């Protein structure tokens, strides 16, 4: 799994959106999104609430079925198949699972299964999707929990854990399936402030190991330190994108400048330069 030496080296496209649009009724949530994510790249999506960043991420996993354009996962069209007459039809569930087989996702609300123990949460897909033997699944699940620092919580019920621990279990559950791409939908937004750090630490470790990551986040410090590229979304458009230092220091669009200004104002009480220091603890 350790690919830090090869980070940004491979250059193959893991995830791509071409002219992708999404409407809810008359309301266009995403318009003509073009996006290409390379192996081992860490991309952060930022923007005001309602800008469409979560919808974009969910469309990249086909949790929302996009209306126009295309999404490719490792070169394969996601969510649709070409019919013989050239029109496209929704993929069958088995096909969809197959295209998404190397994709993992972590949600704002963790979405652990509360009736299963922490260990069982991590083992479930290993047993029923990978078809692993119980012993092997058990061993791999424990090792993965160890990686997020929660091996000693293996027997606990999810609801007995803190939010930060639950989110780390959710990361382990996804990670155990050895995904090549991981999507994070505001992974720290439901957490008490003092629990944010432990989750970001795990994500940062993943990034250093070369995981391809797309992260919707309000944690500008994380974006500044960990992202290779930051995308600023507003009203369903990618308004601006680039390396975090450029975007945060020299925003080109007035909308991004305003967004960052608001953020700095909110956080200036505690830190002088939050965009660059936030993850240091």
């Amino acid at each position, binding site marked *: 799994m350790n690919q830090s030496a090869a980070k940004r080296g491979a250059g193959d496209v893991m995830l791509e959106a071409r002219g992708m649009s999404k409407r809810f009724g008359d309301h266009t949530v995403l318009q003509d999104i073009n996006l290409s994510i390379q192996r081992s790249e860490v991309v952060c999506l930022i923007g005001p609430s309602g800008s469409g960043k979560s919808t974009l991420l969910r469309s990249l996993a086909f949790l929302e079925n996009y209306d126009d354009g295309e999404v490719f996962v490792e070169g394969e069209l996601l969510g649709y198949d070409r019919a013989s007459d050239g029109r496209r039809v929704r993929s069958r569930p088995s096909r969809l699972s197959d295209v998404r087989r190397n994709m993992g996702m972590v949600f704002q609300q963790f979405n652990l299964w509360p*009736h299963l123990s922490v260990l069982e949460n991590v083992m479930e897909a290993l047993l029923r999707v990978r078809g692993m033997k119980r012993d092997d699944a058990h061993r791999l699940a424990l090792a993965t929990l160890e990686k997020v620092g929660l091996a000693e919580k293996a027997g606990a019920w999810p609801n007995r854990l803190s939010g930060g621990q639950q989110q780390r279990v959710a990361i382990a559950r996804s990670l155990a399936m050895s995904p090549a791409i991981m999507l994070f939908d505001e992974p720290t937004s439901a957490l008490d402030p003092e629990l944010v750090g432990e989750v970001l630490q795990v994500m940062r470790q993943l990034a250093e190991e070369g995981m391809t990551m797309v992260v919707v986040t309000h944690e500008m410090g994380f974006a500044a330190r960990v992202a290779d590229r930051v995308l600023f979304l507003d009203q369903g458009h990618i308004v601006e994108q680039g390396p975090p230092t450029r975007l945060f220091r020299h925003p080109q669009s007035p909308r991004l400048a305003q967004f960052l200004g608001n953020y700095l104002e909110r956080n200036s009480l505690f830190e002088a330069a939050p965009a660059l220091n936030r993850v240091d603890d």
Partner: protein
Amino acid sequence: MFDLALLVQGLPLLLAGLWNTVWLSACGLALGFLIGIGVCSLKLSERGALRRLGGAYISVFRGIPLLIQLLFIYYLLPRLGLDIPAWVAAIAGLALCSGAYLAEILRGGLLTLPVGQVEAARLLGLRGRTILTRIKLPQALRATLPALLNEVILLIKASSLISAVGLAELTRTAQNLAASSFLQLQFYLAAAVLYCIVNISLALLAGQLERRFEKGRA
């Protein structure tokens, strides 16, 4: 009004009647449960036609009195050339009817599940049936346990109607004994006690299950 000797004499008959009540109800409920899961899945389907089919099932089998359903099955099927024994008609009637109620109870439980849990399962590659049996149903059963117990007890009591297709279950047996001995109070009281024993045992069992589930939630 009471005659202990006659009661002791009638007890084997009463217990045989109780046994019929219990095993026919149990089979009816087990089948009804499978029907309930199926109908509930129809009603939660993304396709309108399937949803309407599920809705129609519930309207019919919840709308028609169980007694009439039983009589229909018992008298209609032989006319169609299907000669079925009474116990099959009884189980079929109980299953078809309880299936409609159980479908709605389970649907209520499934609707309270956060969609995110299913999204997470899909992203991990779990397929529809696995998600149903491993993620959705276990939680729906826990959430609806009190309502399910209600339905089970109601059905056990309603199973007295299967005497209409000629089976001597507990109520009919008590009726027969009461009529032949003229000790109405004694034998109806005995039947009442036996029903209570079964249903209270079920309630205790459900209570224990509930406490076990709660340990995990807290």
